[in-house]
């Protein structure tokens, strides 16, 4: 298990390095001048050149890349090209709002998704299964930003139940403002989780140990929760690990539509303004977060699944 952990950890570091190198290549390839954006239209050529030199933008790509990684080892992500503030501070100030949003979306997706998945499998072919099937496909096919706009129009503008913009201050205000964006991001995942869990449960129900349990006369509820769900839930953990990555990338829509701060909006704005240090810093932090979540998901599956655990211990 320890060896497995070390292997996965090394692989994760490699993923982060590849992402950063690819990002550097991409930002180098796209046109646009951060110096002009940072200094405004009235900056003369001399000032622009001085800015590029200060930010290291006049250096060859490989030198910039080397400088970035050496700074990174010192825990320095550079400085915001526009405001001059440390990138790490800016990114860390935005990260919590995105994490709250992703967490809220996971809760929105998970609770009804698991419930629907269990009920659909338990009453296979019944009315709940059919409704769940239709709803799942319908919600999955609507983009998050469309859901976001309709939620806003109905629940903020028409009914006035929820605020339309911002992340709020204080626990209850933050929670209140989190509801609609979380719904916008999480709704599509309800159906996805429900369908995966349903399929996994049905597969597990045909396994020998379940038949044996039935033969012993155990109740269906006991079989479901003690024997089936423990194994059937495992594929969902992996899917959820990937899903969190998807939610992180979709967060930008919710953040723009709901006028919320967050990493997605930060990167979006930074790309527009060619604020490369912010783009690189924010992508690095989210990549690390995503890699950690996936690593945790893999380790959790390995730990929960007796078969995998057994394979690894040999």
């Amino acid at each position, binding site marked *: 298990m320890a060896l497995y952990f070390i292997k996965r950890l090394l692989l994760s570091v490699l993923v982060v390095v590849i992402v950063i190198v690819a990002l550097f290549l991409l930002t180098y390839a*796209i*046109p*646009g*001048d951060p110096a*002009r*954006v*940072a*200094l*405004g*239209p*009235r*900056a*003369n050529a*001399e*000032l*622009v050149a*001085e800015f590029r030199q200060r930010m290291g933008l006049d250096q060859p790509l490989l030198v910039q890349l080397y400088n970035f990684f050496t700074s990174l080892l010192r825990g320095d992500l550079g400085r915001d090209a*526009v*405001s*001059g*503030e440390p990138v790490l501070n*800016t990114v860390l*100030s*935005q990260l919590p*709002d995105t994490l709250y949003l992703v967490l809220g979306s996971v809760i929105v997706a998970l609770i009804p998704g698991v419930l629907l998945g269990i009920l659909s499998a338990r009453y296979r072919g019944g009315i709940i299964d059919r409704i769940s099937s239709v709803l799942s496909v319908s919600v999955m096919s609507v983009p998050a930003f469309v859901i976001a706009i309709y939620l*806003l*129009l109905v629940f*903020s*503008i028409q009914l*006035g139940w*929820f*605020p*339309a*913009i*911002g*992340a709020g201050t204080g626990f209850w205000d933050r929670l209140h403002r989190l509801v609609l964006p979380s719904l916008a991001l999480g709704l599509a995942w309800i159906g996805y989780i429900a369908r995966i869990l349903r399929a996994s449960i049905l597969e597990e129900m045909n396994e020998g140990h379940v038949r044996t349990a039935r033969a012993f006369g155990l109740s269906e509820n006991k079989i479901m929760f003690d024997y089936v769900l423990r194994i059937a839930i495992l594929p969902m953990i992996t899917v959820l690990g990937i899903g969190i990555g998807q939610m992180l990338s979709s967060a930008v829509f919710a953040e*723009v*539509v*709901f*006028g919320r*701060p967050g990493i997605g*909006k*930060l990167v979006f*704005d930074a*790309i*527009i*303004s*060619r604020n490369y240090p912010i783009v690189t810093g924010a992508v690095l932090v989210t990549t690390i977060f995503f890699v950690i979540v996936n690593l945790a998901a893999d380790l959790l599956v390995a730990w929960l699944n007796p078969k995998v655990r057994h394979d690894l211990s040999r």
Partner: protein
Amino acid sequence: MERNNKNTLTRRGFIGTGATLGAAAGLGALPFASSAIAESHVEGGILTARVYADISNLDPAFWTSEVDSLVIRCLFAHSMGYETGVDAFETKPVAMKSYEIIDETHIGFELNQGIMYSGDYGEMTAEDAKYSFERIADPELNSPYKEDWATLDHVEVTGKYTGVIVLTEPFAPLFTTTLPGVSGVILPQAAIEAAGGQFSVEPPVYSGPYRIKDWQPKTRLILERNPDWTLTDVAYDEIHLIPIEDPKTAELGFEAGDLDFAEISVSSIPRYMSNPPAGSTFERFDGLAYYWMGINELNDQLKDKNVRRAIQLAVDRKTVVDASSLGGAEPAAGIIAPALIGSREANLYDRDVEESKRLLEEAGVANSLNLTISIQQTAENLAAAQVIQANLAEVGIQVTINQYESGTYWSLGSKDEGDQYLDIQLFLMRFSMQPDPSWATMWFTPQQIGVWNWQGFDNAEFAELQEAAQIELDTEKRDEMYKRMQDLMEESGDFVFLNFVPVGSLVRDTVNPALRPDGVPVFYEFEPS
């Protein structure tokens, strides 16, 4: 509620008003109408307003956006300011109590007493004015705004609160944009030096009606009342500025009750004008920002002036403007708005499809010209480009619309990005403006080719006029100069002037806004209604 702003700000008019008041007061100087230091009254409350971006630099020598400028106005005492709630651009006193035109290159001034800096930096004095003005003009600092003090020789301090601005040449924008603008901010030398000579988003000192209470980048900026400010009344305890780039999001936020004040998108102006949200009013202003189609004469296919003229003649400007603003704007006759001197009344060329076809035939490109029009990815630009595409198709020119996100778009005409500035052909462009005509024309000189002059417009007379108009103090002569400059632009075949960008703002009924004639908010003057 619609506001029409058709008056003009002229230096002569401005000085004339001051002189009359000065004479009436028998002071031999030019006092402003109201310079008494007022007691701040406490009404409390929070004003929540949308700004289109976050702050990026609050140093008066290095600010970059209109949002920076709005915030700087709240944090630091300016020499002068603009009147709000009026139809014409008029200036008023802030830090400067009075000024005196000694001659065309010597302007005496007196500061209000009792303007206190935060911390241990004491009271504002003429030494601070000298330092602040000369700092921006200093070539070594290399401020992007040093041209605001282009002809400053030095500032002579004559007393604790008095001094003389000494110019090498007369400078017309001094009273229209320099002193009332950000370059007129007065800061103490000790504070700036303690900050290392310049600063960005953490001011080392405050001298204005508000100070920063809390800044959460990209989230909100909270300004709180500055207890040391006694120059004017300040109504709100706090101003919360929320950066929301997308105007549609801001509109929804306002309708949901999250904002007290929000500038909206141009395309929403007709809708809100006829039907503002409950509990709010809508105000429309004629903005100063200008919108036009550029035609790049450096491009091989557009080198022939007849071809460019044919394009000018083919475009139906009224339809283009209607499409892009959904009826919210009218076609413009130039790049200088009607509120300013130098504004033209009519274009030199109107739509003439037959003449356009004839010119294309004469140029040998009838029905064989394929061009591109480059635009930033917005609904307004796309609508305008589609009409232009249809107009040009009528005369046999096929146009492909290329849409770009803003970062890429703004690099298209830049020499620094290689030869692509020669490849760009037609493009839609919008520039912001300050209330002096020199701000409109300064981007089209030969030196700006490959920087902001994407048309490649290269006219020696224009360049000479640009220089001359800056030092011309006679309003009528200046007016003629700027009109001539726009004539030259249009005659070159490089420009199709489209419209001045209207400004629409939603204001909660509980708020009495303070807006400049061009709709720009002066937040520290907002009051509960």
